[in-house]
């Protein structure tokens, strides 16, 4: 390392940054996916149309086929614009308190996700602190924590719902706990590593100053673990959303994105399924991005511009 001050140059323009950054590659990939999707939609929905035309004694031209496969009410694979129209219709054109509004369902899932993520993060950090400071806990808890994640969540989610319902808990909390079940894991693993990341020299220094365990924790281990915390929180928030959606499936599909998925598959509403999926993906991306923003804010406060 040398004592060179950061070069104070002019910031490149927005266009230049977009061009040099990730915007262009991402756009190209999206365009390719959309193109492949359109082609796939025509091919997958075509048998239905041939069937219909055959029964009516018609022959289909190529352009007829293409337009009809993209305008089915219950297509095998809806065309992208059908999903976009459905998304627009159920978010912008519906009152958000309505049960037909996707925003309402997204909020139901999001609230369980956030509750589960918060509980999972606190639980994960707590377990990690315990494991790092206690060798018995390290040996006894870690195998169970890893084993907990080998059980398929689809198998355990109904049992959690049923058990909690029988002790009088229903609504948000059971779903949140399924999110917790998934999200605490990356936080424990990441934070155990993070809290152990100070090297022996730094720990020796603390010892030479006769620092207490609490001082070593707050002044060394905790700040050292921040990059690990945020990285595992990014994973945790995304799988919290998965947990909340899975948790909605066995409740009888009352509300939430999981309910939309389930209802959609009951009634063959593929467009509804796909729009719920996109809403879930958008939500997950937003949540991960928000954790990323929090991460860079904390890093900047710690003097480590990234």
């Amino acid at each position, binding site marked *: *390392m040398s004592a060179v001050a950061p070069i104070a140059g002019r910031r490149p323009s927005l266009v230049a940054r977009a061009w040099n950054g990730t915007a262009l590659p991402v756009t190209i990939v999206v365009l390719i996916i959309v193109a492949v999707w359109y082609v796939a939609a025509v091919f997958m929905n075509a048998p239905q149309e041939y069937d219909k035309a055959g029964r009516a004694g018609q022959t289909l031209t190529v352009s007829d086929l293409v337009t009809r496969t993209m305008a089915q009410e219950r297509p095998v694979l809806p065309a992208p614009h059908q999903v976009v129209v459905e998304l627009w219709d159920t978010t912008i054109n519906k009152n958000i308190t309505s049960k037909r509004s996707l925003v309402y369902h997204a909020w139901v899932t999001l609230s369980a996700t956030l509750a589960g993520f918060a509980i999972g993060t606190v639980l994960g950090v707590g377990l990690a602190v315990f494991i790092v400071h206690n060798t018995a806990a390290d040996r006894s808890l870690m195998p169970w924590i890893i084993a907990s994640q080998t059980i398929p969540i689809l198998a355990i989610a109904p049992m959690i719902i049923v058990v909690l319902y029988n002790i009088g808990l229903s609504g948000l909390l059971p779903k949140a706990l399924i999110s917790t079940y998934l999200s605490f894991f990356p936080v424990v693993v990441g934070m155990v590593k993070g809290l152990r990341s100070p090297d022996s020299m*730094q720990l020796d220094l603390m010892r030479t*100053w*006769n620092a207490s365990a609490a001082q070593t924790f707050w*002044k*060394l281990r905790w700040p050292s673990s921040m990059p690990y915390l945020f990285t595992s929180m990014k994973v945790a928030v995304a799988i919290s959303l998965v947990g909340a959606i899975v948790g909605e499936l066995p409740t009888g599909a009352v509300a939430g994105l999981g309910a939309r998925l389930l209802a959609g598959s009951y009634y063959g509403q593929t467009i509804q399924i796909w729009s719920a999926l996109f809403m879930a993906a958008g939500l997950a991306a937003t949540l991960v991005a928000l954790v990323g923003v929090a991460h860079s804010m904390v890093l900047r406060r*710690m003097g480590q511009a990234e």
Partner: protein
Amino acid sequence: MQHQSITTGGVIAARDLSLTFQTNDGPVHALSDVNLDIGKGEFVSFIGPSGCGKTTFLRVIADLEQPTGGQILVNGMTPEEARRARAYGYVFQAASLYPWRTIEKNIALPLEIMGVSRSEQRERIARVLDLVDLAGFGKKYPWQLSGGMQQRASIARALAFDADLLLMDEPFGALDEIVRDHLNEQLLKLWDRTNKTICFVTHSIPEAVYLSTKIVVMSPRPGRVTDVIDSTLPKERPLDIRETPEFLEIAHRVREGLRAGHSYD
């Protein structure tokens, strides 16, 4: 070999000090029957090839390793008592500054741990930054400083709580020759001004001779002291003292000691 009862006058007194590590390949004798006295205000260098126990000896003084035999007193106390009394500052080979703290916050760290008041922290930080010639760099982060400056900051941190004993484990080992010369000169001035006792581990003969009032030559397998040389050089030492016959004579004796230690390998 002397076998006398420990007197409590000196800063460090070691009697038949031994430390054996149990490893999978059998015991390793890191220190074997070390006898040494270090008086107040001395600048003592420990020199020898790797595995001779020079770092281990420093770590025993610092209560970072436990001896398996013999006795050692630091300021008349056991190393553990001395550590609890914050009797020494330790400087490692790497600066080991916290990247998320500015230089002054890094220096404040031991002071925070020791419960020094804010105003006194500020006062001490200003004083030690001045001592290591880093005044004006307090608000910088470690990555904004060169390696030599970082190491000076870590020395400032070790000086901040005003321990009388400074333990330095190859503090300039990772730096280039020119920076090292400069820091050696500064360290001598600092030692002269503060009247601290310094234990300095190095593997450079010129560095050891230039800095020390006493040079402890050690050799490995088992780690032991083979020679203790009291320097005849004056306290005032410009860099070109290294070309005087006196200097070369001491350097020669150190080299002889190191060679003797190596002969029955």
